[in-house]
């Protein structure tokens, strides 16, 4: 991106230099041939100015091209162009200029005419960082992308916390370190994560199981909102999160980057290093990325959150081979984390839980420490991916992806007696394949067709607590999607079928049952995008997705510490089906004001949810029970993002979202739905501050306002009503500093600057403790240029 920008800058300079010269050929070519069918030399003229649509500035040096007759003109130093010797007729003028979108204008000429041609700055090209939307969307479904500076400002946060920067995305938390993305009120198995193109497969059903993905290795994270079953698997009822590392280098040499991140709140230190290169003799590229994180206990404004430290080690290596026709990629990543869970969040029974709720602060506070004691989680995830691509002539590309994943989750409970063993030890193996043929436009159609398979084996270590049974799962799917585009209109449609076999080995008392399930799941989508004008795009999408119940929902049986509940699956559950409609209005590519509004509506029949019920009496007291049930549910809401450039330097960013969710059978609210929220940020770009050593300096400040969740009842929250709303102040400052031959990027971000004590409705530990207090994070990135060639 940086490179193309430099190139453009160079071109601009070139164009300006040339343009300022007084002698400037008006008509470059005039090869109108006598047999072109248009009568020759009728003496008419089209002339006018080429100007910027927004600033009305003349665009010196813009090229105006006429197809019939084949003529070109270049705008002079006043932006004027003219074509002479034209006859009556219809002419199409194609105008292009560096940094602007190419546009065509068609005029019917009966007499000599003056026509001003207005071009739109190509925001995609001009800015290195493009915020969501802006005509980047090539699909009718609403998406949001976190990349560039916005992504940089989230470095050091977990995946779930980073994604909260996007409109319509929130997270379900278990304390400060466990965060799972929520899209439009849906989460867990309804939100698919694609890590470098492979479906991330772990124990996603657990609300306290954070995604095992290192966001530091990502260059871009895109959220597809709403049911996206066709392309990614029929269970994607809520949406999809695509986590993509940056593409392998395409020019020879070796370079790298070292990043250091520090946080004041939990005294976290993170070191990340990246090295990448391309061989000069062979079309072979490679990359190694690693990161190590270590954090102590987090701090609420008034007390220490005992045992909330964590550590994480990551490694990702990629090897790529690319020829004109054939490409191959081998990728391996390792993720390991050990996460302490707040000591006082371990409620054994309902009485303990009520005691905890009644306390102002957690029973055990302690002092800051890097130690991690029980309860804690120790999770390891391996991903091996092999991908091959083959260009099928001029018409498309065939892609094959194989993925192997091993997910090991060990949970260590608080025990009466010292022990080294985990109380819960789950192992999930996943093999997945995907074969896709993407075809290039054939007349107005472009699309893809493909098949996928997924094979899984879940086991638990002998001697660990029973919660989830052994099972094997095989899913095979086939899909086809096409896009049709003409002029202002794009239509898209897709269908998918998934066949799923699930073989379970579950205990009923001492008896081992081996039930087998077969599910047939269909998905479909229809979408349309219509450009209402240059700046305004209206898109609509209706999709159907069907998710088969997972083994946990069918066969869960066990104690859930932290909520003082026992959870029971229901072996008779059926697939849940969503009909999701969404309308998005996008005003984009304007240099002053851009915005996007999405409205959505999601009907889910047979929605699977955990209903808290009557307590059961165990030897250690009363426990709440949670039973998996099905009912029809209805989700609806809106996302709004606005961006207003008050001056060239100062801009205001607004993001707001609201979501409603009800169980239509019992006419009650659903739990864990994000309350309405709005975030406003003012950003001031300072450029180089008059120093040659600085560039892209900025300061920003803003506030996040989260409402109290008013939409709750006895059924959604039987234990404790939602906490009050809150307001948090945040700020950021950043710059690039040139030191010798390298440019360091440096930034500082601060969250909860007023050190506000608050509790968040979507944090499962809200029963026990306040959220973390003031957090300042420091980041330094040092690029390394090791070998150029």
């Amino acid at each position: 991106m940086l490179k193309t920008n430099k190139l453009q800058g160079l071109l601009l300079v070139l164009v300006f230099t040339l343009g300022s010269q007084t002698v400037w050929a008006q008509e470059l070519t005039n090869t109108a041939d006598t047999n072109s069918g248009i009568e020759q030399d009728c003496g008419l003229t089209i002339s006018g100015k080429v100007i910027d649509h927004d600033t009305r500035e003349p665009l010196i040096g813009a090229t105006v091209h006429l197809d019939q007759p084949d003529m070109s003109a270049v705008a002079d130093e006043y932006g004027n162009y003219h074509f002479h010797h034209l006859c009556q007729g219809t002419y199409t003028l194609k105008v292009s200029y560096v940094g602007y979108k190419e546009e065509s204008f068609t005029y019917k000429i009966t007499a000599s005419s003056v026509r001003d041609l207005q071009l739109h700055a190509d925001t995609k090209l001009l800015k290195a960082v493009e915020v969501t939307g802006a005509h980047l969307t090539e699909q009718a479904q609403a998406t949001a992308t976190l990349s560039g500076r916005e992504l940089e400002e989230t470095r050091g946060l977990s995946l779930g916390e980073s994604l909260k920067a996007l409109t319509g995305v929130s997270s379900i938390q278990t304390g400060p370190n466990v965060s799972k993305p929520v899209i439009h009120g849906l989460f867990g198995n309804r939100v698919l994560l694609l890590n470098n193109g492979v479906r991330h497969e772990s124990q996603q059903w657990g609300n306290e199981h954070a995604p095992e993905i290192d966001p530091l290795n990502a260059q871009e994270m895109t959220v597809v909102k709403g049911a996206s079953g066709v392309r990614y698997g029929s269970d994607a009822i809520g949406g999809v999160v695509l986590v993509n590392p940056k593409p392998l280098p395409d020019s020879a040499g070796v370079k790298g980057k070292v990043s250091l991140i520090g946080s004041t709140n939990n005294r976290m230190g993170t070191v990340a290093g990246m090295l990448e290169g391309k061989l000069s003799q062979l079309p072979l590229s490679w990359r190694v990325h690693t990161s190590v994180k270590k954090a102590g206990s987090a701090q609420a404004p008034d007390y220490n959150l005992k045992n909330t430290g964590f550590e994480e080690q990551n490694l990702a290596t990629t090897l790529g081979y690319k020829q004109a026709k054939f490409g191959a990629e081998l990728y391996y990543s390792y993720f390991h984390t050990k996460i302490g869970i707040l000591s006082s969040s371990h409620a054994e029974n309902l009485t303990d839980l009520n005691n905890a709720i009644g306390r102002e602060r957690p029973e055990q506070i302690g002092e800051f420490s890097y130690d991690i004691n029980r309860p804690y989680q120790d999770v390891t995830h391996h991903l091996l991916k092999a991908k091959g691509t083959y260009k099928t002539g001029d018409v498309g590309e065939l892609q094959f992806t194989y993925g192997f994943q091993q997910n090991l989750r060990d949970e260590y409970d608080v025990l009466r007696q010292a022990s080294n063993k985990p109380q819960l030890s789950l192992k999930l193996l996943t093999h997945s394949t995907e074969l896709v043929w993407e075809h290039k436009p054939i007349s107005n159609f472009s699309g893809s067709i493909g098949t996928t398979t997924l094979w899984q084996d879940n086991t638990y270590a002998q001697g660990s607590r029973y919660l989830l049974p052994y099972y094997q799962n095989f899913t095979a799917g086939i899909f086809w999607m096409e896009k049709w585009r003409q002029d202002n209109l794009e239509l898209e449609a897709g269908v998918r079928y998934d066949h799923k076999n699930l073989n379970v080995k579950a205990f009923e008392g001492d008896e081992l049952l081996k039930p087998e399930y077969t599910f047939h799941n269909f998905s479909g989508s229809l979408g349309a995008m219509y450009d209402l004008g240059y700046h305004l795009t209206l898109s609509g999408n209706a999709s159907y997705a069907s998710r088969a119940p997972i083994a946990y929902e069918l066969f869960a049986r066990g104690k859930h510490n932290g909520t003082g509940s026992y959870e029971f699956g229901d072996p008779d559950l059926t697939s849940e089906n969503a009909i999701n409609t969404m309308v998005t209005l996008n005003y984009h590519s304007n240099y002053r004001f851009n915005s996007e509004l999405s409205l959505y509506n999601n009907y889910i029949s047979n929605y699977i949810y955990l209903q808290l019920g009557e307590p059961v009496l165990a030897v250690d007291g009363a426990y709440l029970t949670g039973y998996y049930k099905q009912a029809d549910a209805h989700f609806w809401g809106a996302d709004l993002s606005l961006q207003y450039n008050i001056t060239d330097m100062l801009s205001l960013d607004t993001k707001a979202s609201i979501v409603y969710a009800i169980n239509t059978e019992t006419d009650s609210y659903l739990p864990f739905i994000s309350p309405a929220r709005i975030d406003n940020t003012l950003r001031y770009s300072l450029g180089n501050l008059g120093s040659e050593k600085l560039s892209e300096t900025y300061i920003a400040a803003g506030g996040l306002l989260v409402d109290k969740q008013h939409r709750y009842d006895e059924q959604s929250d039987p234990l404790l009503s939602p906490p009050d709303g809150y307001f948090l102040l945040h700020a950021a400052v950043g710059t690039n500093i040139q030191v010798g031959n390298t440019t360091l990027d440096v930034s500082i971000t601060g969250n909860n600057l007023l050190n506000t004590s608050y509790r968040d409705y979507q944090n499962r530990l809200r029963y026990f403790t306040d959220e973390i207090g003031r957090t300042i994070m420091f980041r330094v990135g040092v690029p390394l240029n090791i070998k150029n060639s």
Partner: protein
Amino acid sequence: MFNKLIFNIHLNTMKKLFRPYLAFLLIGSLLTISSCGNDDDPEPVNEEELITTVTIRLEPNEDAPKGTQTVEATRRDVDGVGGTAPAIGSLVLQSGVTYNATLTLQDEQANEDITEEIQEENTEHQFFYEVTGADVEVTPTDRDDNGRILGIESTVVTGAATTTPGALRIVLKHQPDGLKTDTSDINTGETDADVSFPLSIE
């Protein structure tokens, strides 16, 4: 017409291209079967640190009238939460008697004596007794290594006879990391056991 032609060509290319994929799939499935075909059946899981059985045994002390019986009541739930409901015995005590009470906790799934475990970690545990609906006073008699109340053993003094049964509630609290102090109470720490026996005095 032209589109149809292209489409047919595509179909042919597709067929060709699918062939190696099918082969790959076969190889893939072979791989998965050989490397991960975990067809072993799981063993039944015994819940760790489960307390299936709580027994209180009350022996009349030497001052009790002759013929006063030793009383024992047990709460037993061998399969844990769910499944079969727990069996809970009742206590029928004599009026105006002092009993020496002893608690026994067992895990009958794993055949373990939990009382021993608690004795080993006596500085982090304490039993609490609550009586409702009967004139009974329970006083723990044993102490932990720090000289604080433990409560495996106690004296139980009964008063007047009851007309309707009351209850004796016994709560075992785990109070690690310095939570057990001279002032810690039934609301401190985590509950390891919380059982109630119907109690009447004759």
